[in-house]
């Protein structure tokens, strides 16, 4: 909006403000790449939101039913994949009965991979210790239907085995029999839907994990106790990895986060310095002209 100075009159500040954005792209690329190649390992503090989820799983007795809904697609993999790995490791370590599923069709393959991988690593058996129900269309309708009759919503698991009679689902008729559910949501349907169409009526305890984009919007639900914990973005995942004592991709990524965040803060400060200096100059010129 301030195009007073042009051409030859352009000051250093103005020229800096009009810098080719590809230079900024390069700075960000380097700030991400270098810490990934040469990690530092700064300490990460645990926030109460993440501790909420961790403590609840810690308090569950062996054999409790834990439902993990991986409601995300590959676009959110870097944030929610580490969260799911940590949560599954924790649940398996506590010998909970794990029911995994997804409400996002394009996340099915990833969800299957992560649960198979962690189960194998922890020596757990499909059908006995855990089940992956796969995906079903309908979004919120799936949640209500599971609340009414889990076997109606998922007559077979991902591998096509009938869900009825699976040892892991013994005594589980619907969502009311679930002790703790966590939705790792990248959008809609996600954590909110699990509250509105699930916990609101079927009364299981609910926790949430989400991408950084979603997280600020979930704080009202956290405050009111509608969800008992919130793992937000890569930082949340890193905190959870530290809580269970198995560092993974999230902790590894935090150094790069530090670098890029600081780079952006510096960019913002520079932008404003240049902006104010060019504005002052424009004002002075305006006064001289008058």
């Amino acid at each position, binding site marked *: 909006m301030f195009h007073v100075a042009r051409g030859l009159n352009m000051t250093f500040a103005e020229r800096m403000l009009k810098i080719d954005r590809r230079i900024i792209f390069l700075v960000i690329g380097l700030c991400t790449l270098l810490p*990934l190649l040469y990690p530092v390992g700064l300490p990460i503090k645990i926030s109460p939101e993440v501790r909420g989820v961790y403590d609840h799983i810690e308090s569950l007795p062996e054999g409790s039913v834990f439902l993990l809904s991986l409601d995300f697609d590959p676009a959110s*993999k*870097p944030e929610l994949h580490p969260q799911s790995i940590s949560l599954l490791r924790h649940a398996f370590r506590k010998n909970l009965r794990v029911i995994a599923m997804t409400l996002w069709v394009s996340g099915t393959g990833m969800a299957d991979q992560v649960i198979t991988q962690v189960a194998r690593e922890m020596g757990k058996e499909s059908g006995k210790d855990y089940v992956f129900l796969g995906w079903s269309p309908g979004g*919120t309708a799936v949640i209500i239907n599971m609340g009414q009759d889990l076997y109606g919503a998922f*007559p077979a698991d991902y591998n096509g085995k009938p869900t009825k009679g699976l040892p892991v689902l013994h005594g589980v008729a619907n969502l009311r029999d679930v002790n703790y559910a966590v939705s790792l949501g990248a959008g809609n349907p996600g954590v909110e839907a699990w509250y509105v169409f699930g916990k609101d009526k079927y009364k299981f305890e609910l926790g949430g994990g989400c991408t*950084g984009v979603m997280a600020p919007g979930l704080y009202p639900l956290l*405050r*009111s106790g509608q969800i008992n914990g919130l793992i937000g973005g890569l930082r949340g995942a890193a905190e959870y990895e530290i809580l269970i004592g198995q560092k993974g991709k999230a902790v590894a990524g935090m150094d790069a*986060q530090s670098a890029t965040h600081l780079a952006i803060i510096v960019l913002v400060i520079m932008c404003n310095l240049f902006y104010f200096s060019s504005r002052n100059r424009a004002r002075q010129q305006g006064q001289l002209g008058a």
Partner: protein
Amino acid sequence: MPIETIIGGWVATGLTLFIFTFLYKDNPLFKLAENLYVGVSVGYTIVKTYDTVIVHLIWKPIVENGEWSLLIPVAIGMLMLTRYVPKAAWISRYAFAFIVGVGSGLAIPRTISSFILKQIEDTVRPLVKLVPGEGVTFTWSLLNPASSLNTIIILVGVSSVLFYFFFSVEHTGPGKVVARTGILFLMIAFGAAFGYTVMARMSLLIGRLTDLIEFSDPSYGRPSLWLLGLTILTLVVMSRRSSSKQPKEKE
């Protein structure tokens, strides 16, 4: 390492780099990768929908358990497809009427309970607390979200933002002060969201770069490095050719 994984590494690296070329500018490599992406994800959705809906939700329950009532939703679903027959397109309205009707009906009480009552319930809190032994106290801690001070701040925030979205009242006099408070609160929340989103977007980049670093391993044959060179070369050649063709358009 199995050969398909190595090929996979090369393909994944190539596609990742093709899309990153968008940062330089929109170009055929990006368009190719983008259309490939749409095609693959649509194909994936079709396969998954068929497998889940037709096989597991319709065919097996009907054939194995004789749940013939499931033919009703199948019929409703079929009605939707009449959209493609211009003369019979109006029949699809029956299906939409059903979905939208059920959806709206389900939404009303649940929205009121989860997003109105629950939120009011948590905002309406006593401003002072009765601490056994100390009597009535006002807590000042900012870090405890349930402290009296924060209760007041939350109340002010909720009320002023709600007021900002009043449209049948002019924002004048004291209303102006409230609305301005509301907009300041809104800006803080947007700022927080911006800050948090930076983390989200950077995570995606970290994820992609982690993969590229993995694929620069000799066991894959270093596709990251080879393909990076190749992509840059292609871009250079292409920009040369286009600039010699249209010397006037330089954007």
